[in-house]
């Protein structure tokens, strides 16, 4: 998601001081001219490399015309321990902003014998990736085990009064120093996440320095069911006071954000609003009986007739008139369009800026405007949301990781004739867990030759679990759809031999009523049956598709994160062939649940019954929460592994009387 334009509006922070006529007064980064190799404690000997020192410095300096410039400096020393360390640090990528003014870049290798190999600046290249991110890249010369790598760079970046510096990496960081240096009138607040540290606030001459020192940050490895970025230790900062103006008036509050957002999203002329009135009238939305019908009809029309272009940032392209003419809109234009239509219809809504649980959070007490990137609409009467910038989502579904975390709700208010908004930071509630499911209903029957199985199967997806599949089926062409059906069928029925297939309730509109997307297939599979002498071995466990298996050899580092709470219910029927009996049906019984405060919050329960020649298996697997705390990991793992244990169940079919 592209950063919302309103956050990048230049902000004048009056200095009321003599402006500098000379160049910027920033610290010049230096390194030790006679460095010695760092000795690393024995406890790190199994690491591939260790960050010995990571120094980050953000400097805000006054420039002409009441503008404040920002310079960013990073200085790192890394000790290389083994070949993987060499592989990992042979190539260095330094992220900078597009059009950034690079002040200095230096790098060197310090060999164990003390020899220093300095990087030739001619070997520093610049690249840009497909998202317009710019990098300075270079390869470190002469790396060998036991060497140190040292580099630093300083560049001038577009000024931002909010920031986030991640201090944890996949390898240990022995020492981190973060300093924010600003003119003394500008006071930054600093807050740490996923760990605890305090910042000092010091004024030296004309500068104020907020500083954090962090010692021995352990490496964080990626783990299953954990959002890596969200769990990394990080320090966030924001400008909170300009003491020249007012020592106690807090800057960049959530209320100020709500006010700005409201002002931008409702910025249209009477003429433009009249055009929207005509649109409402022409489509008969005002005649619809209730608010929900209006919301659904408007969304269907806009997402069907208008294109959302994330890259479209121009003023004209986002004016309501421009949007109505071209049927193409960027983020602001899209939000204006929905807002104007719903205003016209009298539908009560709030603009909301959502966070993203995968990365960072909206903190009520720490107003980092960089943490709320995703605009959605909230309808208080229905207590539901709409995602205007996501053509693949329909009311009331939004991207699941935008929910179950705080968002900034912009509540409309009036001051005299002035309409504005105030902020309410609160949870963006997702739909009830029972509405999101990924179920299987299957009937399995052996062929007369007893060497393959006919499987009549329905894979049933609803709620958040259906979004990705519905999107894929709607935007894919015929060949791609065919491939998807094959892949899904192969995953669950272990067969590409598809005799029949149909996709039901594929339309996006089905999301409004949560009509499940159903993939119905009839297949023939030889993979689930094996012959052993006069017995048949039925790999019934594989009929629920491959399940995740979790084995945690190292202590778990992160809490458990799931994209959304959900249910997986499977109903399998197996027709027992004539003359055969199942000798081990009790292998199908598995029961793993976790009760918290008297309520089951997660579980896997499988059971069966045999009536006549039909074996009916019922499995219910539920995860009722999106996040589980660290101390419930063992229970969580048992439940996850219960489903993979079911994968391994093999039923033995014996001839009666043998």
């Amino acid at each position, binding site marked *: 998601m592209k950063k919302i334009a309103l956050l990048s509006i230049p902000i004048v922070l009056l200095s009321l001081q003599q402006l500098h006529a000379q160049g910027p007064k920033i610290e010049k980064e230096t390194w030790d001219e006679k460095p010695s190799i760092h000795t690393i404690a024995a406890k790190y000997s199994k690491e591939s490399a260790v960050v010995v020192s990571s120094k980050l410095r953000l400097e805000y300096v006054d420039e002409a015309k009441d503008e404040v410039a920002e310079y960013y400096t990073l200085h790192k020393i890394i000790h290389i321990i083994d070949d993987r360390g060499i592989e990992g640090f042979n190539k260095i990528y330094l992220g900078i902003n597009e059009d950034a003014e690079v002040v200095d870049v230096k790098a060197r290798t310090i060999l164990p014998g003390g020899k220093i190999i300095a990087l030739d600046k001619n070997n520093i290249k610049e690249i840009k990736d497909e998202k317009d991110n710019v990098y300075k890249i270079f390869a470190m010369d002469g790396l060998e085990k036991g060497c140190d790598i040292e580099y630093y760079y300083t560049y001038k970046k577009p000024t931002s009064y909010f920031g986030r510096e991640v201090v944890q990496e996949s390898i240990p960081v022995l020492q981190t120093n973060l300093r924010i240096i600003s003119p003394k009138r500008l006071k930054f607040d600093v807050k740490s996440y996923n760990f605890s540290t305090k910042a000092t606030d010091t004024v030296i001459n004309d500068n104020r320095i907020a500083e954090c020192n962090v010692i021995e940050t352990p490496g964080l490895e990626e783990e299953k069911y954990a959002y890596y970025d969200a769990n990394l230790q990080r320090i966030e900062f924001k400008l909170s006071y300009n003491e020249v103006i007012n020592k106690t008036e807090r800057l960049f509050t959530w209320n100020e954000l709500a006010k700005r957002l409201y002002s931008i999203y409702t910025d249209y002329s009477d003429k433009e609003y009249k055009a929207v009135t005509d649109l409402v009238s022409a489509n008969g939305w005002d005649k619809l009986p209730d608010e929900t019908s209006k919301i659904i009809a408007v969304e269907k029309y806009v997402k069907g007739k208008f294109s959302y272009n994330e890259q479209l940032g121009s003023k004209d392209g986002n004016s309501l008139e421009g949007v109505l003419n071209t049927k193409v809109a960027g983020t602001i234009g899209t939000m204006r369009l929905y807002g104007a239509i719903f205003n016209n219809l009298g539908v009560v809504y709030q603009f909301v800026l959502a966070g993203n649980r995968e990365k960072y959070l909206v903190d009520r007490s720490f107003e980092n405007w960089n943490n709320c990137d995703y605009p959605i609409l909230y309808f208080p009467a229905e207590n539901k949301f709409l995602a205007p910038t996501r053509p693949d989502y329909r009311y009331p579904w939004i991207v699941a990781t935008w929910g179950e975390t705080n968002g900034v709700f912009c509540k409309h208010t009036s001051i005299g004739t002035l309409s504005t908004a105030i902020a309410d930071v609160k949870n963006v509630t997702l739909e009830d867990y029972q509405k999101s499911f990924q179920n299987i209903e299957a009937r399995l029957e052996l062929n007369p030759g007893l060497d393959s199985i006919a499987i009549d199967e329905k894979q049933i997806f609803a709620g958040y679990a259906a979004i990705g599949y519905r999107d894929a089926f709607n935007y894919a062409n015929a060949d791609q759809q065919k491939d998807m059906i094959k892949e899904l069928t192969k995953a669950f029925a272990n067969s590409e031999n598809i005799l029949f297939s149909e996709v039901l309730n594929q339309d996006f509109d089905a999301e409004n009523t949560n009509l499940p997307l159903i993939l119905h297939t009839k297949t023939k599979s030889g993979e689930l049956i094996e012959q052993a002498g006069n017995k048949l071995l039925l790999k019934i466990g594989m009929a629920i598709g491959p399940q995740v298996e979790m084995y945690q050899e190292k202590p778990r580092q992160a809490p458990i994160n799931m994209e959304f709470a959900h249910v997986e219910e499977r109903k399998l029927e197996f027709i027992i062939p004539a003359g055969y009996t199942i000798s081990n049906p009790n292998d199908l019984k598995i029961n793993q649940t976790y009760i918290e405060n008297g309520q089951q919050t997660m579980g896997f329960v499988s059971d069966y019954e045999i009536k006549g020649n039909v074996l009916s298996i019922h499995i219910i697997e539920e995860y009722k929460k999106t996040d589980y705390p660290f101390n419930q990991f063992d229970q969580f793992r048992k439940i996850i592994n219960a489903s993979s244990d079911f994968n391994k169940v*093999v039923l033995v079919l014996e001839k009666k009387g043998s």
Partner: protein
Amino acid sequence: MKFKLLTTTLLVTGAASLAFGRPVTDSSATISTATEAYEFVYNAKSNSVQVKEKLSTTYTANVYQASIPVAEMFNNQVSITDVDCRVDGHSLRDFKPLYTYYGSDDIFYSDEQICYFPLNIPKINGTGVVKFEETVADPRYFTSIMFQESYAVKHKEVSIKIPRWMKVDLKEYNFNSFNIKKSVQYIPGDDADVITYSIDNLPATVKESNSPGPTYIYPHLLVLCKSAKAGGHDFTYFNTIDDLYNWCHGLVKSVVANQDPITAKAKELTTGLPSDLDKIKAIFYYVQDNTRYIAFEDGIAGFKPEAADEVLRKKYGDCKGMANLTRSLLVAAGYDARLCWLGTDYIAYDYQTPSLAVGNHMICALNFQGKTYFLDATESYIGFNEYAERIQGRQVLVDNGDKYILTRIPVAAIDQNHDVEKGKFTINGENFTGSVSHLWKGEDKEGVLAGLNSIKKEKTETAMISFLSQSNPDYAISALKISGTETPDKDVSVNYDVKYKDGLSAFGKDYYVDLDRKKDLQDASIKIGERKHDFWFGHKINLSVENELTLPAGYKISEMPAPLNVVNPNYEFHVQYTDGHGKLIYKKTILIKNTHLAKTDFAQWNKDIEQLTKTYNETAVLKPVTE
């Protein structure tokens, strides 16, 4: 084409891991018309011959909200002078192509860049027209014209305007099954010939795993720019293979190196070693082990090797730099070593066609005791006198001063590679317990080591356990011993104890036993009709498994699956259970003797794989002797 090393290493080896993946095509749009016009022009200002290109493509959307990634490559020799894009007849608001570096896994930095933008066509049957104008500054770099596109093409015209002062050969490749019409028109006013190819109903290119390189399968022209006489000047490009060699060799000659560190390093590496062969290996393995493959291909650096002392100092380089360092160290140690140019098996051409498109790799040749050895230090784990499949049998241009030697790299016998697993097991409760030894040679060994070392976050032992167990935590390995990883000169082997239950089922008093846990090639049938191209294995496969189960006391073998023997000129499968008197013995051998499996052989291959799978799905049965 620059000398890019294609470092697509085989993933952790084992035939079971071979991908028989499905073809990937994009039919979200069709190209209704495409025209490509090329013209050789003389630029008096730069006193050079240039190639002007005008490309126009009209896309028609087949789906709602089609998003077509439009990308055009350019570099120091090829510039894009104009880009235009229209959708449904309208120019685009905020149209801003992204001009950026083109990265790949193989190349850290090059002058290869990309002009990219998504062409979004909102409605079905909507159209998008994309136009590029480009200039190639030097005809040497105008090497080929590919006809097929990522999308199906209804009609395409390719025209090449060649003034008669320009000598060019156009070689047609893979035209066979395509309806491509050619016409030639002389334009007297320009004293030029216009050669036009027109094609109807050209299918989209199909990406498939393990396919031959594009020059083997797609219709295209190889453009051989030989010479020109323009503006009163004579220009010679690649008229003969001698011209190509002289150009490449000239770049090598211009490389100036400081010999002192090379001589010192050669001495350090070889002092005290007893034989010439030991010294040669020490040098080759040093470059392999201590020089990381990092390619900077900036302008002429894409063709010119870096000085050997610089590669030695930096401890990284590309194929050219590593070849040059290998050669320089060997020469400094007193051996006859040469640089070589070649194209890997990714390229269909050989040196009968003088063009920059022929080569994509450099290695070192060593003349030693009457035999020529080829040393490719970019293959990090291959031994001396072993050859990667991709260079086996390839024509190679060997530096010989003012002249060159044209020869071929040997084709290795199948026993260069070997993947051998031997296990001895007993039944302990519901588990197999026992000990396993595993040995890898040649490219199998290279695959294992490359795989292990590519896993950055784990130590060798953890990664090896994960590989051996196929990440199955129920395959519990203990007492793991790994040997042979320290030098490419040795085979890699492991020994370990194991406890596992996959393949063992106890029902009542009977045991159902499957002694093949991996079932190599089980999923290797090929979808005939879907697969468009021949299937090329990464290397020859020579795989054997020998597992021995000691029968539990009081048990006999009741049933054993029938043996399987498939023998074919291209491959062999042998699977057999035997009664070893108190032991059940399982032996399997899989040989892929010819890495190129042709489409015409797919039907037989599938029949043989079906037989193999059927054998895998049968188990042996052990019963009490009393029954």
